[in-house]
């Protein structure tokens, strides 16, 4: 019902916006209808209409005009399809939406690997391949940027800091409901023939391509709005909503990682919004930002784009670091080793992430003098990144390691990111990068970082927090099968891609020279193996959600706050606000208690701890 209202209001918005733009165009002597100009302008009205219709008007904006807000009465499963302000509902909304997007983009990857099995064009022509490749990249980037932060930053973070919700619950709902328009724009782009620029959308190609390209710009722009709003909410929540006694250095490392990620998101997302906007204006309003014939500058796009998109790599990977360290501590039954250095590593990465972007542009024709400083800054960022490994290794050492499914994924992140990180050192070296830039070496490298790191951590987090979110356990054996299947498939796919890059295969091509065929066939086989691993996951995920055995409050015996309350948590999370006494990593420390939950009394082990 809510969605219907949103769609109708969005359509009304589009029509009103289109009428306005067409009137302006007619008044200035141009033909009234031109699909791109009209749509670009009307998009803003459609977006506003959608948001108003989907709930902003009824639950939020009516009081601004002296009317009472509607009372929110939705219950049960319908809440997931409504403008619900409970952070736990929004977390699930994010998770399901972006998992769906992940599997769609994964299917596109399967198509690409099928096409690349042999020389020549088999099932896709170059044009179709470019579209599928571009959509795959765009959607996967969206997933990597928003899935973990949206799902677990929303669901778990407030509970971990002892809060009853996010600081701005309505803003939180708004940031989620900005996502469906992103899906609409991507679908529209696909139906209108797609776009051929990859997710990077370099101008001037992105200014000249077909109408599908415009919808890519609108999708990225809208997702950016959602990210900025969500990031602001997380930052305020962590600063102001921490329970009594939850000092900065008692925060779970996962909370730190999301907090730092949100700061990056808040600062840098506007730059990709700007990059998209400049392209939209060049396409529709006759501006010439990227048209050299009129004094424009194509490299401007790359600078603005990478000024966001390098920090975005850390937006994708820092939550993975947080999840990994969290599990390594809880499942090694040891305090997180060198906690402050790990936090320092996160902050160090944040601080340096804005001064490395031009390593994506070493061969772009930028000033030669900039090569050395960007080479140096990029190599130096490996120092704070190393702190994550310092902390993980020190925690594992002498631990009582429990090989649960989430722990396996955390270890997978460490292994995969090690390869992703080390190959990054190669790519930062300019003489090497000149050869490897825009080859499959780069493709392999960033898949090791984003898929091997970010997405592995996302799946680890799903296995870890699923019992809390659903009140049911996932099947352990299927989880282990999924992990090993995915881990083997992942490495079988992307290790040979490094070789492909070294052999001279450039990226974003549907066809290649014959010498590259055998390695490509191997990569495709690995890719199909990787792809099928998710069937196991999906079966387990869906079956367990419906029929899995009931989960205890604290199936992992972990110490953070979310495990001290029922599974799934009640609406207000805690009966009374908890009081935090120490950090959550006091494993093996006699008498150490993370928090006093007062009269809650649901966690027997905690009561024991308090009495002792």
């Amino acid at each position, binding site marked *: 019902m809510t969605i219907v209202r949103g769609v109708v209001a969005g359509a009304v918005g589009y029509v009103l916006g289109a009428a306005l733009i067409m009137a302006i165009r007619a008044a200035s002597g141009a033909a009234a209808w031109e699909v791109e100009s009209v749509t670009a302008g009307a998009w803003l009205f459609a977006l506003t209409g959608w948001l108003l219709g989907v709930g902003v008007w009824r639950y939020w904006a009516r009081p601004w005009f002296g009317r009472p807000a509607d009372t929110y009465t939705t219950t049960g499963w319908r809440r997931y399809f409504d403008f619900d302000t409970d952070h736990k509902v929004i977390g699930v909304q994010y998770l399901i939406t972006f998992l769906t997007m992940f599997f769609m983009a994964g299917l596109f990857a399967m198509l690409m690997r099928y096409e690349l099995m042999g020389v020549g064009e088999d099932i896709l022509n*170059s044009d179709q391949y470019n579209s599928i490749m571009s959509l795959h990249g765009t959607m996967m980037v969206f997933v990597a940027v928003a899935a973990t932060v949206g799902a677990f930053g929303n669901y778990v973070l407030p509970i971990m800091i002892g809060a009853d919700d996010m600081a701005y619950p309505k803003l939180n709902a708004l940031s989620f409901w900005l996502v469906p328009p992103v899906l609409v724009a991507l679908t529209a782009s696909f139906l209108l023939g797609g776009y051929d620029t990859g997710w990077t959308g*370099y101008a001037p*190609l992105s200014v000249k*391509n077909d109408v599908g390209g415009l919808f890519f710009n609108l999708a990225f722009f809208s997702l950016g709005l959602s990210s900025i709003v969500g990031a602001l909410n997380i930052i305020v929540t962590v600063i102001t909503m921490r329970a009594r006694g939850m000092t900065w250095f008692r925060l779970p490392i996962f909370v730190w990682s999301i907090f730092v990620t949100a700061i990056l998101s808040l600062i840098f997302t506007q730059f990709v919004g700007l990059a998209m906007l400049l392209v939209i204006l060049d396409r529709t309003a006759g501006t010439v930002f990227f048209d050299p014939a009129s004094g424009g500058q194509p490299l401007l796009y790359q600078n603005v784009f990478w000024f966001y998109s390098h920090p975005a790599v850390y937006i994708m990977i820092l939550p993975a670091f947080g999840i990994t360290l969290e599990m390594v501590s809880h499942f090694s039954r040891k305090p997180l080793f060198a906690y402050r250095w790990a936090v320092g590593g996160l902050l160090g990465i944040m601080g340096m992430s804005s001064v490395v972007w031009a390593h994506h542009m070493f061969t772009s024709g930028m000033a030669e003098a900039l090569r050395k400083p960007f080479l140096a800054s990029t190599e130096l960022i490996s120092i704070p990144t190393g702190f994550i490994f310092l902390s993980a290794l020190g925690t594992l050492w002498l631990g*009582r390691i429990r090989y649960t499914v989430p722990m396996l994924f955390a270890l997978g992140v460490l292994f995969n990111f090690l390869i992703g990180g080390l190959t990054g050192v190669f790519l930062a070296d300019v003489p090497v990068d000149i050869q490897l830039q825009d080859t499959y070496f780069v493709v392999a490298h960033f898949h090791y970082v984003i898929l091997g790191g970010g997405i592995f951590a996302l799946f680890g987090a799903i296995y870890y927090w699923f019992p809390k979110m659903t009140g049911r356990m996932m099947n352990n054996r299927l989880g282990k099968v999924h992990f090993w299947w995915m881990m083997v498939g992942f490495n079988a796919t992307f290790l040979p891609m490094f070789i492909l890059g070294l052999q*001279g295969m450039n990226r974003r091509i549907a066809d290649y020279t014959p010498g590259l065929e055998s390695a490509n066939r191997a990569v495709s086989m690995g890719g199909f193996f990787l792809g099928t691993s998710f069937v196991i996951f999906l079966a387990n995920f869906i079956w367990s959600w419906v029929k899995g055995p009931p989960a205890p409050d604290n199936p992992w015996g972990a110490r953070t706050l979310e495990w001290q309350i029922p599974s799934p948590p009640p609406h207000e999370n805690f009966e009374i606000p908890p009081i935090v006494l120490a950090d959550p990593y006091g494993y093996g420390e006699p008498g150490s208690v993370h928090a006093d939950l007062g009269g809650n009394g649901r966690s027997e*082990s905690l009561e024991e701890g308090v009495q002792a």
Partner: protein
Amino acid sequence: MGNGDHSTTSQTKDRTHSDRQPGRLATVAFIWLLVTVLAEITVAAIEWQPFAASREATISDDAFNLLMVLATPVFTFVIVVGGYALLRDRHRGDDADGPPIRTSRAFIATWLVVTTVLSVVVIITPGFTGLDELRAEPEADLVIDVRAERWSWAYRYADSGVETQGNLMLPINRRVLFRISSTDVIHSFWIPAFRIKKDAVPGQITTTMVTPRKLGSFDNQEEMRVQCAELCGVGHARMFTGVTVVEQDEFDAWLAAAGG
């Protein structure tokens, strides 16, 4: 399990563990050395790069190989230390927690020093030294204007005014300066066998230099090709032509025949 107080058990375990520490460290160090030596031998035995045919290719390949030598012990360190802990320190049925080791001054200090030194070393060499080498010979014997256009390459030999399309002819052991431009979108001028790559940006002339060191052509070596490396639309994958390197006299004859 978990939150309860396991003071007695964990303290006894703790003591035994710290007694075992020196022995463990020596074992791990030994395994690490052994694995690293084996890994370095393997890395050195593998031919990582394809056909290399220019001065620049040597610089780039040397840098890659040096980075492999430096990255290998880092990789093996994490794998061996982590792997050792994963095998030896697995949970064995009791509910005890591990020893509450929160920090170790010696380990952290060593880590900091080693990673910082490694990063700085990598910046200096092969980073800065490689870049300096690439720029060391700025005088060109031959200047070629490269024009990229969707989806073909056109060449103009600046001195003789000869214009060609398709195969790119070059003399061996001569310093060549490419002046690269594009008439439409961004392309990238890449010759895999030479390890050179520079984008062709509309409205801008970009340059790159190379000294071919080996004879050869696309017919014998797939890497001897000018390949567009920046996505430029539907014809991107097939935007490549061969590169042929010949002796100077053969090149002169070819140039004269082509109208120079």
